[in-house]
Structures are given as C-alpha cells and as structure tokens.
C-alpha cells in the first residue's frame, strides 16, 4: 500500500532523523512511502493559540497536499489529533463550504503507532535496540487520539530493549505548544517534575511519540546534564542490528 507521510513541520526543520526513521521503518515493513510535496504544517500552532484565520491557508495547502493518498501517517499524536479533530473548525471558520467538504473527504490520518498496530497489524516490527528505555505517553496521543497501549506494546516487542515504567507517566510534561513560552515558569515546573521521574527510572533513553514534548523534556534533561537521551518512537522501532553507521538510519547504539 502507498501512504503519504507527513513528517510534521517540527521534524522537518529540527528533527529530520525521526521522520527518516519512519521512512525506513515503513519500507522495511513493505509499505510504499511517499511524502506529499506541498505539505508543510497541519496548522495546530495557530489553531491552539486562537489564530483560526491564520490557520485557513495552511489547511488549504494541507488538503491539496494529501488529496489522493490512501492513508496518511504522522509521527505525532498531537498533529494527528489536530488534523482529526480541529480541521473541521478551521474549515467552518473559513465560511467556504468546499473547504468543509474537503476536510470531510480527506484521507484517513493515523499516528505512527495506530498505523502499525491497526492498519499493518504488526506489534513486533523486527527492531533491535539494546538499551534501557522508559516511555512518556504524550497527552494528545493518549487523550485526544486514544492510542492506549499501542506504543508500549510496540516497544516491548523490540529485541534487546530493557523496559522501565515511568512514574506519573500520564501527567503532562508541560510543553503545550505556545504554553511553553506564554507560561514558561509553569511549563518548566511541570517539565522539571517529568525530567525527575525520567531520571528516577534509571533509563538511558526516554522515548515518546511527539518530538515537541521530547524537545521540551530533552532540553531540560540536557541543561541539567542528566545524561539521558531522548528518542522518537520511530527511531527506536527503525533500529536494527548493524545499521548504526548507514546514513540516515537511527542506529541502535552510539
């Protein structure tokens, strides 16, 4: 099957390894991957900040980009949630009935973990990652999409991976998009507690399905010289034995 991959604007600009990992992983599982050339951003940063008019041109661009694909895969619970639940609002705001119809007719969008478990029906993706790992279930994947234990099952099936539970896992890390800069003190207070829980696990790697939350928690851990690395779920699932040195592949060890 052919899917359109939306790397997300954040992964495109700052975390290309996460999006490349999705390409490698899906190809390894026999999926034909294409990247819609026009696509840029789902518009969530504008929508969640209250700038609906500013989100309209992004929605038009997004819909034109994804038209015709069988399915869309996004390595982000937050972006998938926004596309699934908020695009309708933006279209209604535009007052353009054609845009409302286009949202209704847009191809189905899946977060990576949903696509793997529900569409491809795989849990063991054949990955190898010999490290101790803890997992932060990001709020939008958990509560907006309801991915449940899909990411956990995918990770626990990875060969060599040593799993540790994250205390208070379901509590928000404090990123929250523009919340992180509009309310930086509160955001940092929340993130510091999340970083403390990550360190309590003794894990070497913190994994999550949203690069935005990882940028926040990882930024705090890095500033504290905590010695904990953050990785996107896709990077761990793309890791296989002996591929560490190949360009563009997320290697199992560094």
């Amino acid at each position, binding site marked *: 099957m052919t899917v359109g991959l939306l*790397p997300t*604007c954040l*992964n*495109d*600009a*700052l975390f*290309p390894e996460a*999006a490349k990992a999705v*390409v490698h992983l899906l*190809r390894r599982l026999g999926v034909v991957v294409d*990247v819609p*050339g*026009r*696509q*840029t951003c789902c518009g969530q*940063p*504008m929508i*969640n*900040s*209250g*700038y609906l008019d*500013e*989100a309209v*041109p*992004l929605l038009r661009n997004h819909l034109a*980009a994804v038209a015709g694909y069988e399915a869309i895969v996004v390595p982000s619970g937050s972006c998938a949630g926004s596309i699934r639940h908020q695009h309708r609002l933006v279209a209604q705001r535009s007052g353009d009935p054609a845009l409302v119809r286009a949202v209704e007719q847009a191809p189905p969008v899946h977060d990576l973990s949903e696509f793997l478990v529900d569409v491809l029906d795989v849990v063991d993706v054949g990955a190898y990652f010999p490290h101790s790992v803890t997992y932060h279930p990001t*709020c939008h994947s958990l*509560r907006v999409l309801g991915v449940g234990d899909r990411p956990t099952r995918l990770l626990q099936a990875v060969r060599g991976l040593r799993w540790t539970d994250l205390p208070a896992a*379901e*509590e*928000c890390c*404090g*990123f*929250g*998009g*523009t*919340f*992180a*800069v*509009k*309310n*930086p*003190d*509160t*955001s*940092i*207070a*929340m993130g*510091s507690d999340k970083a403390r829980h990550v360190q309590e696990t003794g894990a070497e790697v913190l994994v999550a399905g949203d690069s935005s939350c990882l*940028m926040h928690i*990882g*930024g*705090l851990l*890095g*500033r504290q010289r*905590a010695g*904990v*690395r953050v990785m996107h779920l896709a990077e761990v699932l793309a890791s296989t034995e002996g591929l560490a040195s190949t*360009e*563009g592949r997320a290697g199992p060890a560094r």
Partner: protein
Amino acid sequence: MSATFVGMPTFPVAAGTALADSQLRRNLAHATSTIRTKRAEVVREVDAWEQLRVAGATLKDRTLRHLDVYLEQLETALTAAGATVHWARDADEANRIVVDIARLHGTDEVVKVKSMTTAEIGLNDALEAAGIHAWETDLAELIVQLGDDLPSHILVPAIHRNRAEIREIFLREMERVGRPAPADLTDAPLELAAAARDHLREKFLRARVAVSGANFAVAETGTLAVVESEGNGRMCLTLPEVLISIVGIEKLLPTWADLDVFLQTLPRSSTGERMNPYTSLWSGVTPGDGPQQVHVVLLDNGRTDVLADTVGRQALRCIRCSACLNICPVYERTGGHSYGSVYPGPIGAILNPMMRGVGQDAQLDALPYASSLCGACFDVCPVRIDIPEVLVHLRTKVVDAHRGRRPTPQDLVMRAASWTLASSARTARSTRLAGLAARVLSRRGLRSAPGGRRVLGALPRPAAGWSGARDVPLPPAESFRSWWSRAGRDAR
C-alpha cells in the same frame, strides 16, 4: 474582610510568584494527589461510570435547552410550597435582595453554608458594608475567613494551607470574632476540628438568618439540595428562622428522579467518597419545623451570556465538584489564587472569561491560555465538559477581540508563520536559512546533548522564555525535505 481578587496580576505573573512558594507547592501537591487517588479508587468501582457521565451531561443539556420553562416551573413549585422567589440579574441585585431581607429582620449577623455562588457575587463584603457580619461555617471557608485570605479551591478553599498554618490562624484570630481557640491547641486534625466546632456552635445557636447556595434545584417539586460533609450546612438550614438561598440558574434539574445521577457522581468526583455524609433537601416552609421564612434568589450574573455561546455553554453543566482542579498539573503547581477568581483551575479558566466577557481585561484574557491543553480535566469531568475544546474556542475569541488593534508580537509571529507555512517553497527557504545559520553557529564549539546532537545554551530575548531552562537543538544542516528530495525518495 479586605481580601479581594480585584486587581490581580495576569496568570503568568501570579503563577511565577506562586511557583516560588515552596510551602504552597508542598501543600498543594500533597492535597491534590490525596484527593486524586481517592477519586480514582471510588470511580473505578462503578462499572457504569461512563454511562453516568453521559446521563449527567445529557440531563444538564436538556435542562439548559428549556431553561425558561424549568425556571418558571421551579418558581411556581417553590411559591406553592411557601417560599418567596426573587430574580437577580447580577451580583449587585442579588446582594441587595439579601441585605434587604436581613435588615427587615433587624439582624446584624448571618450564618453561611459554603456556597460558591455567594463567593462569586461577593456577598460577605456587601453584607459587611451594610453592617451585617457573615459567618462562614464550613471548616475550610472559616479558615479562609479568619485568615483574611482568599479561597483557592472550589471544594476546599483553604487547600493551600497546612495544619500548622491553620493552628496559627485559629490561635490568633478566633478570639477576635467569638469563642477563642484553646490555648493548648495542637495541629492534630481532631483538635483543630473540635476548636472549629466550639467556635461555630455559639453562632449556629444565636443566628436568626442563614444564607446558603444550592447544589441542585428540582423544578418539578420546588426542592433545593445541599450536599456537604461537615453538618454545618444542616445546622444553618434548620436552626435559624429565616433562610435565604442564592441559586445560579444553571443549577436546575427537571425532576426529583434526576438527582439520582448527580448524587452518585458528585461525591465520588469531589471528595472521593461513595456518598457524602449530609444531603439536605427542602421545599419551602414546613410550619413549626425549620425556617419559617424561606427566600430563594435565582441568579443570572453572566450565565445567560454563557448559554448564548454554542461551544462554551457546556460549562453550565458544571456541578462544582473540583475534579478538574485536582487533576490539573497547572493548578497543582500554581494554586488557585493565580487564577484571580473564586473559580480557579480549568473550569475557572473557561467560566470566568465567559461570564465576564473577553477582550476587555488582560487578566481574564490570559486565563484561556493558562493550560497546556493536556486534556486530563475532560477525562475526569463527571458531566463531560470538554474543557480543552472550550479553552481553544475562547483563545479564538480573545484573538478575534483584538483583531484591528495594534498587533502584539504574538500576532506578528503567527502571521509570519502562517505566511511562511502556507507555501512549501517558503517553508523550504526558511529551513535552509536555519540550516545555514546552524552551520555558522556550529563553528563556535557547541556543547553536545546525549546522543551527539549539538545544542545552543541560553539565548537572548525573545527566545529566553524557552532557552532559560531548556537546551535548544541546533537546526540540522539538512532538513527532512531536503534529504527526501536528495536521497530519501529513491533510497533502497
């Protein structure tokens, strides 16, 4: 009675101060996690919890759709039962009605059942200004009142205080307004509660007028309901000759049977109990038994404005349980005072701007942004108020209210981002620029994050809000899209 929310700084400023209060942080973390755990346990044991949530939401929505009909039905039933019904458009009207009734009875004091509605309209201050003392009789409200403090939680207004602080307040303040606390008072909960009982008892026995709110008002039977834990409400509702109840118009339920749903969901969601210790229900006057004059003030005070908002009206389902406060990671760290209202936390962040209007007051306009949109509040809400949805809706209203005015830095950033991201060519150009900048910066011997990624340290404003405590990853030399065009598309 000088403590007031008027003139409070905006949420980010107030939160900054609260976050630095180590005592507050410990008190709140302890209290909210205790109630959260209790709630989770008693909710888990109800198999039909989700059905109860849906039933509660549906009942409330249906009532709100026909509010005009049910309100008149309630008035008729109450009047038939011997009560006097008053209608108040706003806080001033409601306060004036209560003051007039109290004056009519020549009293200089009233005892009060814990009531969010009376806190909302500032009734105590209005009574005080008329020379009438209002004695709070709920333990937590008493602590707040004695300490000349502000409430910080809907259910437990003194949640920001610990036992040691409460002991000091009792020792210092009780003697100024009545029976003093025992000189050898310790901070043992039993002793604190006993001191409050003794202090309040003389007020219960002396007062001739009581003021309450109501958790529910049943239109069919003209019944008001108060749900409580301490029994102070029962004392106020039964001992004085005159009872005045101020009821928000959203408290209505059509029929007696509808109480069934809420008397299951409210205690479990609020105190984490299967059933609350005291449920008082009354309809009008019973000759020779209880208050012989019963007044009911039906209050709007912005509620019809909320009702007019098709997205936001779901907030009128709220039964003031506080589950959203207790689960909220923002509330847990910033406390209730940061929200600048008697309604703090997630529900306050949507109720206050809707009841008082957006686009006029920076403090109110900042409230919809006082959330990371994590959604935990929606999950625990017993009447399924989609608080994140309403928060985003209100952010839109705040932005729209400011359109046409001088643009803020945020407006400019959003417009620029919208212009750039609406075109893949413009987006590619900007990521290429970032990549170039990164290559220049990387010559300066940057630190590496675990995993080998180079990072930037503290940056000047406006990036300081991010980089003050978090490393910033250096943009990669090649974006994903550049890689895709160069190698990715044809790889393998």
